């Protein structure tokens, strides 16, 4: 008995000695939060990795002071940029200067430069990435105008000092505004090889602050939806140059175009991914005034497909609802007989946006980024039949009819505004 116990414990003691192959202390890891990919100069690829700084706050000062004033240089990201044949070799090459093992598991963003995204190399890069265990498909995919390296250098934290949190919240704004698509690698890759639809990515850019014109230099735009800009073009100023706005559109192999913020919202509405957004339209009764609305989807869009004809006929009905935010003219749009006026104005506004987007995708991009193919596929019973139909070739010729349904549910804090007054104190 004793001998057997001894033998057994000896064996068990051998186990730890033999084990621990994959053990790695968490502080021996360099956590990459963003991966930037450019076309290389001396090699195929220029790789930029943004790494979380492990500036130790607890070490020197003993117990961390309960989140007190944080003056450590934790906000300046560490960025490694190098030319390499592939991401994986690149990480090894980067280790010649960075002492810790790179770990991509916690990466939040993968950023392609527009130049790379528009080239043949893009296809190779994407399919080369997906096999690696550390590439998690929940990271978001960005295409930046200009260089990915520059974007990463400007990818700073501002309000808080936590890079991963900032990166994650950055893309979360898609649910807040609808101006960028919610494009993570999971969806992108699913669509990339798709027979149903084409993939999209978030459009990013750096703003030079030049669009914010000095008084007297610019003119007021006619459009009112606020999203007619691409990333990097917003008339704004202040701190961060980084800007995420709009959509990068791909066909099966490479990037073929961009959508601005407004178009991205229309896209999201058809795809059924629209969450909420503020809209500003002209007052239908007094065009000098503006009306602001907060818009939510009422239900998923309704898609009907008819394949009997020569070309596929598709009918899309977008169903939205919204709250009144501001009525500058103080018209009583809350009254049941007045509400339809505003609702119809908004419906036609959205319909025109959607229609022009569909036209753009059919004519210019020839890409179904709406996922209409998914509805078409439901008409087929087997994969063979479906693949024989060749949806991607049929899409540009398809007839797409749209309809927008909008209803104002709530009117905010005011249920009946009193009219504005004139100088003389008389109601207008």
């Amino acid at each position, binding site marked *: 008995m004793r001998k057997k116990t001894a033998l057994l414990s000896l064996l068990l003691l051998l*186990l730890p000695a*033999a*084990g621990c*192959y*994959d053990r790695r202390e968490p502080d021996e890891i360099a956590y990459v939060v963003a991966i930037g990919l450019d076309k290389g100069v001396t090699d195929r690829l220029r790789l930029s990795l943004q790494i979380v700084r492990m500036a130790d706050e607890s070490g020197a000062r003993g117990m961390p002071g309960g989140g007190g004033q944080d003056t450590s240089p934790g906000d300046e990201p560490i960025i490694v940029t190098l030319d390499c044949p592939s991401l994986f070799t690149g990480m090894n090459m980067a280790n010649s200067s960075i002492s810790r093992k790179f770990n991509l598991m916690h990466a939040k963003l993968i950023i392609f430069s527009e130049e790379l995204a528009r080239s043949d190399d893009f296809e190779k890069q994407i399919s080369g990435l*997906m096999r690696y*265990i550390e590439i*998690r*498909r*929940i990271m978001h995919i960005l295409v930046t105008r200009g260089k990915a390296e520059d974007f990463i250098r400007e990818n700073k934290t501002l309000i808080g000092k936590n890079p991963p*949190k900032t990166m*994650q*919240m950055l893309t*979360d704004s898609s649910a807040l505004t609808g101006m960028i698509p919610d494009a*993570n690698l*999971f969806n992108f*890759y*699913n669509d990339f*090889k*798709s*027979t*149903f639809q084409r993939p999209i990515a978030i459009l990013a850019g750096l703003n030079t602050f030049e669009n914010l014109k000095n008084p007297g230099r610019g003119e007021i735009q006619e459009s009112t939806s606020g999203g007619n800009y691409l990333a990097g073009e917003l008339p704004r100023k202040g701190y961060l140059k980084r800007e995420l706005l709009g959509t990068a559109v791909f066909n099966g192999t490479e990037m073929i175009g961009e959508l601005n913020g407004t178009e991205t919202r229309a896209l999201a509405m058809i795809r059924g991914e629209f969450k909420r957004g503020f809209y500003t339209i002209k007052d239908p009764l007094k065009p000098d005034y503006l009306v602001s609305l907060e818009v939510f989807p009422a239900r998923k869009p309704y898609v009907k497909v008819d394949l009997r004809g020569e070309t596929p006929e598709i009918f899309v009905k977008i169903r939205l609802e919204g709250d009144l935010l501001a009525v500058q003219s103080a018209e009583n749009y809350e009254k049941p007989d007045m509400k339809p006026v505003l609702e119809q104005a908004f419906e036609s506004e959205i319909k025109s946006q959607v229609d022009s987007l569909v036209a753009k995708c059919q004519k210019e991009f020839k890409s179904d980024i709406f*996922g209409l193919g*998914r*509805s078409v*596929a*439901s008409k*087929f*019973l*087997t*994969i*063979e*039949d*479906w693949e024989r139909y060749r949806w991607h070739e049929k899409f540009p010729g398809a007839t797409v009819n749209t309809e927008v349904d909008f209803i104002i549910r709530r009117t905010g804090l005011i249920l009946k505004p009193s009219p504005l007054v004139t100088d003389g104190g008389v109601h207008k």
Partner: protein
Amino acid sequence: MLREGKIGVFEAISVITFMSATKVLYSSSRALVEASGTSGWLTTIVSGVTALAGFYFIILLMSRFPGQELVSVFETVFGRFAGIIFSLLMSVFFLLNSAMFAREFIEAVKVYAYPLSPPSFLLVIFILAIITVLYFGFECVARTAALFAWPMLAGLAVIVILAVPLYEMSNLYPVLGHGPACIIKTGLLRSSVYGDALALAVVINSLQGSEHFKKSGVTAIILSTAIIATGFLIYNLSFPYYIASESTIPVYALTRSIEYGRFFQRFEAIFLFVWSISGILASAINLYFALSTYSKVFRIDDHRALILPQTVIIFSVSLIPLDISSIAYEHVNHIRQYGSAIYFGIPLLALLVAVIRGIRGEQAGA
């Protein structure tokens, strides 16, 4: 006689479900997705129904010979010599299943979590756990399975529920995948997935009465079918068919893609536990049935004498395949496709011979 103790219906169901349903967590499920496109879940239901039909014949066979377990039934029907051959064939098949479970698990775990550990090291831990479970006999195997049944089911349910935002109905289109002919053909071919219910016939004397045998066998097949079909369904719902057939371990790929805001993501931890525990148990249960069949063939009183040699065999057999490709494309695939011949073919043959030769078992109690 081998002392196997008594187990209840719930324990029997757990044992068989661990043997059958665990397969959905491994690479072999990818092959089914590839073969059936969007209709993996339909295909596996066809397999389940086929297995139920097969199990009906096993019930017929066993009810002809009340009070006898499968090994002695074979000996009665085919005669001592041929019976031993068939029983040994089954024993070897259980052993092979166990070894392939072990290796499939090790390969998968190496890919997803332990890239640097040598397979033999992981296998040693795996086998230590198996030895512990087996050492205490069948009652222990069954109770361990029964104890882990609920946590494992809960783990799977959590994954199913958490993955809801990933579901896209249109990923199921076109509904019939590569066509109804393909569904039925693949479904029939892979009915061996649910063939494990046969194992209950080996330990039928531990199941108090043939009523329990029927009940637990049928319930286990239905439950496993439900679990595996759900697995395929959620997988097909989340990935379009062309991407679905890519992943090494489909369900793991799904788990990795779950994301709820900044904090609630990366749920593989749950999966890793579900995965390891059911892998160990599935392999252990298969090995136990191999031991049990072997012991009964050679009238060995104590299965514990065989544990060490058998685990050494498992260790070496599972290290025979050179790489994950040969496991995924060849070994496991062959086991799944030709397994039904062993699981259902031999009992069916026995039944036919018994009917033709007019052999019946002694009445119970005589």
